[in-house]
């Protein structure tokens, strides 16, 4: 139990509400970096349990075709005003983790899809999942520009990723706070517009 005399870990007593944004993307794309640069706390790591189809296990004639596993999940926090706190949850994007999203997407303001242009193929699974989800989780794409990334325009990337015209796409440097926050702003502004459009 590591919780002695750590008052700053607590939320201000004035906070009345919380909400969250998911930061999704494939492994190594910079999710935790982005969360860390935007967060007021050092990103924390926790575990979530998830049911997965068991593979390579000798099951007893179909009695057990699923097993529970745990997935590491990093998150950060931003106190936006005295009564509102925003959590940022880093969520792995690969297909095998999609079950995890069901619990996390519930109540989320939206998802920021972080993309590495050097490994664009890793992004398709994530985008597929977001487009297939029946709960219409609003999402925006943030391209994490690495020093050795090739220069692409957002128009080129939009086409390569086959994004809808209205889906926001922004370039960002996940190490930079302003840049990470700007990506979150782009997503939130879009979520607001999307909701106004659907009412």
């Amino acid at each position: 139990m590591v919780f002695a005399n750590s008052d700053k870990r607590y939320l201000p007593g004035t906070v009345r509400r919380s909400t969250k944004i998911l930061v999704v993307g494939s492994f190594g794309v910079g999710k935790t970096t982005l969360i860390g640069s935007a967060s007021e706390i050092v990103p924390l790591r926790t575990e979530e349990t998830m049911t997965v189809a068991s593979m390579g296990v000798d099951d007893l004639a179909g009695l057990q075709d699923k097993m529970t596993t745990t997935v590491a999940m990093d998150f950060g926090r931003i106190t936006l005003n005295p009564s509102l706190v925003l959590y940022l949850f880093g969520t792995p994007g690969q297909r095998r983790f999609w079950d995890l999203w069901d619990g996390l997407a519930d109540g989320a303001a939206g998802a920021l899809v972080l993309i590495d242009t050097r490994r664009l193929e890793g992004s398709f699974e994530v985008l597929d999942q977001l487009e297939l989800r029946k709960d219409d989780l609003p999402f925006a794409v943030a391209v994490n520009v690495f020093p050795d990334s090739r220069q692409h325009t957002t128009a080129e990337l939009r086409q390569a990723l086959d994004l809808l015209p209205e889906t926001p796409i922004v370039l960002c440097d996940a190490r930079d706070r302003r840049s990470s926050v700007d990506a979150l702003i782009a997503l939130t502004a879009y979520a607001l517009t999307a909701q106004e459009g659907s009412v």
Partner: protein
Amino acid sequence: MSGQGEYHDRPVRLYVVTGGRVRPSRNTIRPETLLVATDTGRQLPVSASSEERSLLRMCRRLLSLVETAVHLELPVSVVSVVASDLIDAGFLAVRGSGDEPACGATRADPGDVESARPDRKLLQEVLDGLRKLG
């Protein structure tokens, strides 16, 4: 928390902590749900588990479920079961909800938890808050 790939065992199996249950008694509890101990003055029953005691002690001040899970070194889903029990028993409260869906979310379709989304007012507040960050 142990590093990735490091063998990590617990003195007690997780299903013992939750009494064999995999789902909390409340379906509105989420990782970002804000928890705070109620000021009942009542003592936990002697049968209370060490996890219940630790969680309640931790929630003397405001924390989200996911943060308590980090500090308890337990998966979020396990802590949500423990927290739900404490809420049901009146020792723990969800901040900002009178047993309503937590955290200011509205439900498009009552009973369909998956469709819960923050309302416009909340989204605007998030946007304003982000824009004010330096």
